[in-house]
């Protein structure tokens, strides 16, 4: 493996966003950073900055209010990127499924690469999920831009992110 391909896998910077869950998974994500689990040994840092992130950890069932922010954050993360849905809510809505104010999971709004089940997901599972995500990340380059199919059909070139955002908002 060349140094460039290796460095893509070895340095995942994390962005973490809660789309309206109960904060249980978020506490577990923060536990992953503590000395007991220490994800920095894989090179992971919690950046809190979408523009410098590679791995997008999303928790929560995506409430209608969070939807737009989620799309906005997703578009701000530069490719190559992977999305990890952490917790039952993020996977399919969990206990909030079919409530009037939720979208029933992250994959209804943005493409998801890895699903980490559990309520709340255990730190071991989160680490395992991110390591799985890194395998997927190693196959991606900055050329594959991932968006839902209906966006790709309408905007094949994807040069104007603002228009893409407008379109995704309407849906």
């Amino acid at each position: 493996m060349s140094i460039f391909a290796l460095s893509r896998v070895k340095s995942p910077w994390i962005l973490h966003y809660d789309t309206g869950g109960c904060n249980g998974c978020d506490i577990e994500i923060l536990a992953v950073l503590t000395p007991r689990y220490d994800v920095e040994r894989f090179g992971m840092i919690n950046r809190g900055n979408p523009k410098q992130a590679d791995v997008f950890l999303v928790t929560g069932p995506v409430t209608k209010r969070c939807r737009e922010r989620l799309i906005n954050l997703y578009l701000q993360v530069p490719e190559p990127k992977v999305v990890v849905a952490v917790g039952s809510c993020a996977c399919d809505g969990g206990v909030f499924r079919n409530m009037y104010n939720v979208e029933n999971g992250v994959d209804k709004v943005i493409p998801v690469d890895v699903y980490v089940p559990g309520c709340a997901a255990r730190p071991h599972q989160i680490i395992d999920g991110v390591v799985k995500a890194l395998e997927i990340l190693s196959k991606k380059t900055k050329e594959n831009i991932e968006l839902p199919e209906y966006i790709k059909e309408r905007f094949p070139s994807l040069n104007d992110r603002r228009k893409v955002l407008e379109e995704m908002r309407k849906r």
Partner: protein
Amino acid sequence: MDFLLPASLLVLSPLIGGLLEGTFRKLNARMQNRVGPPIVQPFYDLFKLLQKRPILINNYHVIMAYAHLVAMVIALATFLLGGDFLLVIFFHGMSLALLSMGAYGVRSSYSQVGATRELLHILAVEPVLIMIAANLYLNTGTFLLSEIFNSNFLFKSMPLAFLALVAVLPAKLKKSPFDVSEAHQEIIGGPEIEYSGPFYAPIYLAKWLEEVLSAGLIAMFFLGNPVITLIAISVTFTFVLAVDNSTARLSYWDMVKYTWEISIPLVLVNLVLNYVGVL
């Protein structure tokens, strides 16, 4: 020989800086009882940043990132090749100012706040360095580093100036308690927040060079015996990291107040003692 060592140090400075940064992160992790990333982690980060998809905010913003790196390289080159010490200080200050100008060029409010705080960093660090330069002149009779490098164990005659340098190192390296411009938990990187992918790489690289320059400044006080020089550098950096891990961030005003009320008087006392002939 006189030219070969500094020139090779300059060429290898990204490598040395990267390893230094990696050691910092490893040491930091060990101090928190963690395993920590591998020592070559900063190189992985840099190569990854270069492969990300570029997202441009505006041209001016990106040009300032590269100008920041170039000014830092000039400061380091002037230092290693034995130029004027004042020139090193001014180019170092200019490099920080360029970063802050770039950060003013985008609309993110975090970036704007970070830019203002970056200017306060200059206000805190540069006067102390200039006072140290004045003190060096009193001891060696020159600002030229090529002649200062011939000196032997300057620490003996200017211990208080060295203490002042150690006191501003956290502000210079953006470590706690004076990491006010970066402040990752507060303003998420400050001036660097809007830089992404390949445009963040020059800033990341400039940070390593800043660490090499700081190591050089420490080494300047302990020349003569290479072993003592290396021990002094590692002890000082370990101390700075220990302080980084054991303190919380102070406000930007505390930073300026602290350096102006403690570091500058320390150098001044040393200056007077040197002039009187006590030290």
